[in-house]
Structures are given as C-alpha cells and as structure tokens.
C-alpha cells in the first residue's frame, strides 16, 4: 500500500474518530484532531516521491494517484496552512458547540484537497473535488445564519462548476477512452475543433468557480464570511487555490494547443482583472471585517488568475508566488478576525476599536499581513505584485496592468480601514475587558507573519520550487533566466543584494515607529472617535467621515457606476424566475385523477399520430 492511500485512510479514520470523540472528552477530541492533521503531513513530507504511482483498480475505472512537482508545491500550502489553522481552530473552538462537526469537515476537506493534488486521473480528481465541496459546504452553513440562501448559493455555484467539470471529464473519457490526466493532455491534440474548445471552457468554468472568477464569484463573500474563521483561513488560503491549481494545468497543457489560445488567455485575464478591481471596490465598502477580507480574497485571487492566464513564464511565476503569499497573509488576516471576534464577540469594524493595547500580538500579525497584502516593499506581497506588473508590461498588456495597478492601489484603502478599525483609534470602555487571544491562536498567526517577512526577503525560497514545478509542464527555466533579468533585480543587483535594501527599509521603519511611539505618548490628548480635526479639515455636518464610517465615501461615489451592476442580483433574479417557472410546471399534477387519465389518453393518441416518425 502506498503512502498516499495510507494518508487518505488516516484522514478518513481520524475524521470519523474525531467526530465522535466528543462524547469521550473534549481534550481527546482536540488531540485526535491535531494528530490527524500532523501525522499525514509528516508521513507525506517524509515520503515524497515524485515518480511513484499508485493505482486503485476498480473494475471499470482505475484511480491513479501520484505526485507532480506542481501538486507538491500546492501540497506545501495545504499542509502548512492546515497545521497552523488546525492549532488555531483548537483554540478558537474552545467551549463552542458543534466541535465534532467542524473537526470532521475540516479534516475531510483537507483530505480532499490532498486527494485533488495527488490525483492523476480525472475521476479521483472529481471525487475529491466533490468531497471538498460538500465538506466545505457543511462548514459554510456552520453558523446556521441564513443558510438557505448562503449555503445553497455556495453549493449551487460549486455544483455548476463541478458538473461542468464532470461533463468535460466524461467527454474526455469518451474521446480518449481513459480517465488519466496525462492521456487527456496527450489526446487533446487529436480532438475535433469543437471539443477542443468545449473541454477547456468547461474545465475552466469548474475551476473558475472555486477561484471565484468574476461571473462565478457570487458565492464567495457570503461563504468566506460565514464559515468559522479557523476554517476560512484554509478555505481562502488553500481551498480556493485548488481552482488555481486546475487552471494552471489547463493553461499550461490544454490552452497552448488551441488555435484560439490568445483570445482565451485574454478573456480569462480580463475577467481576473475585473474581478480584482470590482471586488476591491466592494471590499472598501464593507463594514464587517469578514466580508471585507472575503472581498479582498476575491480580488487577490483575481490577480493570481491574471498571472496564470497570461501565462508567460514570468506571469506564471508571479501568479503562483502570489498564490502562496495570498495563502499566507490572507489566512493570517482571517485568523486575526477570528481572534478578535472570539474576544469581543463581533467582527464589525465600526464597533470594535483600539485593541492595539489589548491584543498587541494579534495586532502585530495583522500589521505584517496587511503590509504584505498591500504589496508594500519589504514584504512578500510586493515581490509578487512587482513580478506581475512586469510580466504584464513585457507581454504588452498595458490596459490590464493599469486595471491591476488601480485595484492594487485601491486596496490600500481597505487595508487601512481594517487595521484602523480594529486596533487603532480610541479605546472604548466597552472593550476594556478584552484580553489577548490564547497562545494557541496567536502563535499560528505569528508563524505565518514570519513567513511573510522571510519571503519578502528571500523569495527564492519559494520561487525555486515553483520554477521546478512549472518546468514539469514544459515551462522554460524561468527562475534562472527571467528572474535575473527582471527589472527590480537588475537595477538593484541580484537577489543577494536585495537583502541589505530590505533590511535598510525595515530599520528605517522601526526607527520611525519608535520615534512616533514616543512622540505620541507625550502629546496625546483625548479625542472622540469622530474627531478628525487633526487633519485640518472641518467636516460637513451631515457627513460622518471617520475612517470607520464613511471615510471613503467620496471615492466610492466616484466609482459607484462600476459597482452598480451586481452580478449577485442578476443571478438571484434568474434563479427566482426559474423557480417560478418550475412552480408552473407542477400545475400539471392538478390532483384530479381524471385529468391524469386524460393525459394517458393524450399520450397514446400523440404516439399513435407520431408513430410513423418515431418508430420504423
């Protein structure tokens, strides 16, 4: 038995045990939960063997498992985040109901993600994809808040994506006679033109849903904000990357063989960019930290999609690097929100203020992650974004780069809002009792923040694996060629020279911070939360323009036309129309037995009249 099967079995058994261990003892449950995450991770990292292949042979179908460098890269993200989020979850779930439920689905979705990554054939890929979908669905509705809308929306969108994928899978099977991904790639060139177009589109629909691409993203804000934060960190950090993983494969292997290659690439890239822009605007508008981060996640995924879709080696590198970085900092941020929510009971940016003294470590994690998110130089986000811009410019997508740049800049607004909302500003009596979150929650955040910092300085740590992963799909050696020719490093030397610059910036920053800290301590005075007169401007009476309330209103007013058309509304209206239509079809069954008999008669008559055409 191969290590992959063992890992999957461990996950399954652990999930079942954990679900029911709650009857024994809470601690046993927590321990089991952590063991179930850590043991497979250890097993996996001890036994990495790219070339091994396991086949579970069912009579009709052969499920093939094995690793590719690309999936190895994503497996890093998954396991890393899973372990950290697991510890965090144990802390967060202390004394809460439905612990077994959360643990069970948490483990199952981790297992499913792992399964997706190691699947070498489409059936097992789909199986794990679906398991991932329903286990995450069960966690999305965890809160029990508005489940009929949010949950169903999530599931329906996922199902649309998954079924599109399934359709592609069976078509591929009928054309190539095999479910293997490699066979699909090999046989793709021989397919007819229509199928050649249809299959990638269907697959991209499937992956696009999970990657929250524009017309398919409507589930994401609600789902991200409704799942428990310990899970959302995995959900946004790792699960959405499964969509990226699929897209990478499709773009690397299938799209390149298409005659319409550039068109599809442009369309998807534009969709990604628009997703990024619009959702950034929406994020600015949010008052709830969870929703803010959810929209922000969608936006970040948009960048990644842009990178993957453009598909030049550097863009690919940028996309995957951003994917990794997004996993790191967005999970941290969700964890931060979770911690704040656990300690204060709310995640509304308007209500919570001034936690910087109460929860300093959480604030630190939030600060670092926000900086990374915003793409400010010393941290990891900056590297990724820079590479993205550069790849876009070098491949002559000037409009695209403008859009991406715009949304990236606009992201500062919500970054600031987030940071200010929770941690800065005046302390209020209401939150005087708030304490720092327990260590088991803080430590994962800090570890993740540390990774952000390290990757800002040493991006090659992660770029090398990405490079080798992409090389597996026939990408030219990006790291050694393009990376070194890249603008940022050419001007400032190679990556070794990067370190002093970064450290220099960091030192200046620290000094400045210390300076500000001491200065402010002396000159502080009492202001109300709504007093912003320090900026030298007298607010108009009817507008409340604190950072929290309507600070960005002028900006939002300017971009309002872009936000007016909400995909959500259209989709809901469409769904409602459909349901009304179906309400009409059920009138066929009008309850009168005689009518049914008349249907039978008409059925016979119709068949008799059509018999010449129907049968021959």
């Amino acid at each position: 038995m191969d290590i992959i099967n063992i890992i999957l079995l461990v996950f399954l058994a652990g999930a079942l045990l954990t679900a029911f261990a709650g009857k024994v003892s809470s601690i046993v449950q927590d321990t089991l939960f952590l063991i179930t995450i850590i043991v497979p991770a250890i097993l996996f990292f001890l036994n990495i063997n790219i070339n091994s292949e396991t086949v579970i042979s069912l009579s009709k179908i052969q499920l093939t498992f094995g690793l590719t460098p690309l999936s190895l890269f994503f497996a890093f993200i998954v396991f890393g985040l899973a372990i950290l989020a697991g510890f965090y979850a144990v802390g967060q779930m202390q004394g809460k109901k439905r612990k077994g439920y959360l643990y069970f689905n948490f483990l199952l979705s981790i297992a499913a993600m792992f399964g997706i990554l190691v699947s070498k054939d489409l059936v097992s890929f789909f199986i794990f994809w679906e398991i991932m979908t329903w286990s995450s669905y069960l966690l999305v509705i965890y809160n029990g808040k508005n489940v009929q809308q949010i949950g169903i929306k999530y599931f329906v969108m996922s199902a649309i994506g998954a079924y599109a994928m399934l359709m592609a899978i069976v078509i591929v099977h009928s054309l190539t006679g095999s479910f293997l991904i490699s066979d699909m790639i090999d046989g793709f060139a021989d397919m007819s033109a229509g199928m050649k177009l249809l299959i990638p589109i269907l697959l991209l629909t499937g992956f696009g849903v999970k990657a929250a691409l524009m017309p398919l993203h409507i589930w994401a804000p609600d789902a991200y904000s409704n799942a428990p934060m310990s899970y959302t960190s995995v959900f946004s950090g790792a699960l959405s990357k499964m969509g990226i993983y699929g897209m990478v494969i499709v773009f690397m292997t299938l799209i390149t063989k298409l005659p319409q290659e550039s068109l599809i690439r442009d369309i998807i890239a534009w969709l990604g960019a628009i997703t990024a822009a619009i959702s950034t605007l929406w994020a600015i508008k949010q008052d709830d930290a969870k929703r803010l981060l959810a929209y922000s996640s969608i936006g970040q995924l948009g960048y990644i999609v842009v990178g993957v879709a453009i598909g030049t080696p550097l863009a690919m590198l940028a996309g995957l690097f951003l994917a990794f970085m997004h996993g790191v900092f967005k999970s941290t941020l969700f964890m931060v929100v979770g911690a704040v929510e656990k300690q204060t009971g709310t995640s509304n940016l308007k209500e919570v203020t001034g936690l910087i003294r109460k929860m300093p470590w959480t604030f630190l994690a939030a600060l670092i992650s926000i900086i990374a998110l915003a793409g400010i130089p010393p941290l990891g986000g900056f590297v990724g974004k820079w590479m993205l811009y550069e790849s876009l410019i070098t491949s002559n997508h000037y409009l695209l780069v403008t859009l991406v740049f715009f949304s990236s800049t606009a992201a500062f607004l919500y970054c600031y809002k987030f940071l200010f909302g929770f941690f800065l500003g005046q302390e209020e009596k209401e939150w005087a009792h708030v304490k720092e979150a327990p260590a088991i929650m803080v430590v994962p955040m800090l570890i993740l923040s540390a990774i952000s910092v390290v990757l800002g300085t040493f991006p090659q740590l992660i770029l090398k694996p990405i490079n080798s992963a992409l090389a597996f799909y026939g990408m030219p050696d990006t790291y050694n060629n393009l990376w070194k020719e890249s603008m940022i490093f050419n001007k400032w030397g190679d990556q070794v020279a990067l370190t002093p610059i970064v450290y220099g910036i960091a030192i200046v920053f620290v000094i400045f911070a210390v300076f500000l800290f001491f200065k402010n301590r002396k000159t502080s005075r009492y202001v109300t939360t709504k007093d912003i007169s320090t900026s030298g401007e007298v607010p108009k009476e009817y507008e409340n323009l604190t950072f929290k309330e309507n600070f960005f209103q002028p900006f939002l007013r300017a971009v309002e036309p872009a936000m007016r058309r909400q995909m959500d509304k259209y989709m809901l209206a469409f769904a409602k129309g459909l349901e009304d239509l179906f309400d009409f079809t059920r009138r066929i069954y009008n309850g009168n037995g005689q009518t049914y008999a008349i249907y039978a008669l008409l059925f016979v008559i119709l068949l008799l009249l059509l018999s010449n055409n129907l049968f021959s």
Partner: protein
Amino acid sequence: MVGTPVLFIVIPLLAAFIIPLTGMVWKNSVRIIPGIVLSYMLILSISLLWHITETGTVIEVIAGWKPPIGINLVFSPFSGFFATLMIFLGLLVWVYSYKFKRNIDSEPALKYFILLMLLVTGSVGIVLTGDIFNMFVFIEIVGISGYGLTSFYTRRDSAEAAFKYLFMGSIASTFLLLAIMIVYSQLGTLNIAEIADKMPMMSNKLKVISLIFFMLAIGVEAEMFPLNGWAPDVYTQAPGPIGAAFAGIVAKAATYATIRVMFTMYDLSGAMDFLIVMGILTFIVAETTALRQDRLKRMLAYSSIGQMGLVMVAFGIGTKEGIFAALFLIFNHAIIKGLLFFSGSYLVYTKKEKHISDVNGMGKYLPITSVLFTIGAFAIIGLPPFSGFWGKLAILTAAADSKMVALIAIILSVSVLEAVYYLRVVNRIYFFPKKESMETQKPTINALIAMISLGIIILVIGFYPDLITGFIDRAAADLMDKTGYIKDILTINN
C-alpha cells in the same frame, strides 16, 4: 442451491394462505412469518445468483410443459439481479415496519405484512416470468396489494391516492390486455422468448401500435412522465416504509417489464430514442416539480420519479455501458430512496401535515436518523464518496460514449436542482430552530437496524463499487444477449 425459481412465488403464496389460520392461534405469527419467508427468498435468490455464475441462466418450466406451451420462469443474471434487489429491500421494509404501527394488533394492520409480502412476490413474479400474460397477472397482484397498502391508513387522503392509482392501473391493464391480444393474434404465442423470436413476422403497423399500448400499460407502473400523476399521491399517503417499497420494488419491476418488452420483444428502431425522450421528460418535470414541494414525502416521491426517468434514459442509450449505468442507478435508487423514505418518515413522524418545515432542528433530537437522511440526500445528489456518484458517473460516461453531449448537459443541470431541494431539507434539519410543542418519535430498534444497514451499504458501495459491479456487468451482458435469451428458453430440455 436452495431451490428453484418457482419457490419465489409459491412459498410466499403458501405463507399468505396459511397466515390467516396461524393468525387466529398466534397473533404475532402474522408479523413473523412474512419476515421468515422474505429472508428465505433472499437466501434463495442470493444462492441462485451465485449458482448461475457457474451454470448460466436457470429456466424453470411450470407443470412440465416446455415453453412456449407452458409458463416458464427465468432466473438470469439480469432478472436475478432485480429479484435479489427487490427481495432485499422488501426484507428491509419488513424489518423497518416490524413495530412501525402502534396499533399493530388491529385487524387491518395484520394484513399489512401479508400485503407487503405479496407486493414483493408480485414484483419478483414480474421479473422472473417468461410469459407476457403471466406478467399481466403479476402486475395486477402488485397493483391490488399496492391499492391495499396505500389505503392502509384509514385517513381521508389515502383513499384518494389509492383511487387515483387504481384508476390509472385499470386503464393500464385494459390496454395491456389489448396489446397482449394483438401480439397473440399475430404470433399465436404468449411466451416472451418466442414472441421475440417471431417478432419479424408481425407487420410494422401492428408492431408499433402494440408497442404503444405496452408503453402505456407499463409506463403507468414505471412512472413515465404523463402517466405518473398517481405516483406522488401514493408515495405520500402510503405508510412511510411503503413509499420505499414503491420506489424500490414496484417501480423497479415495472422498469424491468419496460425493458423486457422494449428491448427483448421488439426490434423497432427508434424505440430506444423514444425511451430517452420519455425518460428525460420524466426527469425534468419530476425534478422541477420536486423543487417547489412543501411536503417532505411528496418531494421524495417526485425525486424518485425523476430518478426512474434517469434510469429510463440510461436504458434508452442502449449500449452495454448504458445498461450497466441503468442497473447501477436502479441499485442506487433502491437503497438510497429506501433510506430516505425510512429516515424521512421518522423525521416527520409525529407531524400531521408532514411539511418540510417540520424537520426543523431534528438534527439535535434524532441525531442518527438525521445523519442517515443526510447521507441519503448526499448520495442521491451524486456526491462522492457515496454510492450515488458511481451511478451518475456511469450514465454520464455511457451518454458521452454515445456522443450525446446535450443529454449530459440536461442531466447535469437538472441534477443541480436536485441538489438544491435536498440541501434545503438538510439545512433545515441541522440549522433551523425546532418548532415548539412538537413531540418527536425516537426510531425503534428494528427501524434503526434497517436504516443503518442501508446507510452502511451506501457507504461501502461508495468506497468500493466493485462489490456489485460484477453482478451488474453480468446482468447487462445478459440483457444485451437477446438471441442467447431466446435460444436458452426455446431449446430447454427438461
């Protein structure tokens, strides 16, 4: 081998005739004997199923007259698969309802088990018989036991449902007789194999018209689209487990009859396409109707009809993969719909109107039942790793192999609807506050046994479908081998 196929029919009938006598002496025997008989039938069918893997189809003649003169019973891999499945489900229904009704001591309640046993027997008879008129008789047996079971509760609406069923059933049986007569007048035989053999002798016009009448007659029982108005009412008004019996036993038997008639007897081209069209219509109408139901059992009923439509589609594809898919779907539908009906009727057990909103918050009060219902719902949506997924994959693969891309798209998009209404119920079970002042009924131990065994089967098949794919494969091959079937029966020598 424990016996021959004729015992499938004879032993239950013998028991049915004896039970009224033993019931006078020992009241519990009315409940126990059907269970013993059903278990015996299950053992018999499984042993026969093993037996025929070595020897090939078992054909039993009645009264020593070889077919086409006498009636014959055919236990082939195909019919054996159906029979085993139906008997197994019948046994589970028996286990489930052993203590189901509280006033089990009242007189009609005692008849429940006899009716159930004969329902199973009739369905098995439909499947096993090799004679078209004998099939008519068994359809009537199934019909009348169905009417009896439907109106088993002396409620107002159950009589209504039973009457609708009876109305449609009567029209159907009339047209079945007509169709049988047309065939007989041309070929002078009633044996299915010989009819199939001689079918080219019939003129095309008569062929088409008799086929249409057959379709009407069998379509009523098989819940084909314009003929299925009775079905949701019956599923709703019959006692909970009987809904499962209808979905799992009667509909299966009727599907078998449809396939026997369309596939084995007739050699018309276009008939299979017709099956696809009807199946897809049934599927769409039933699933869209189910979406807006506010009664739980009615929703399940429409879903069941939709699934049967899907089965028809799969048969209509007509390739071996299609039939494999259809049989897999049938298997899935039997066990999953059984589980859903079983657990669903406990979720709304104490409620009068049995609205979907009555399941609110049951997850806390009936945890095991709720989990089982959820498993059933997930399985029927076709989510892996439950058994429903393999069936769905099989039918889609079969459709793709036959280059029916539009069909795949339709099936998948309707499946989304299916997911929606099932998940709405699941959400209600776990995440809605319970309605106040409602008692809940804990499932009895026998009901739990039945439900849990179904749940385990769903999971096991989901993880390891090979347990049954062998049987299904053989059954599909058996159905495809039309000439073999004819030859087996017409050249039997004993």
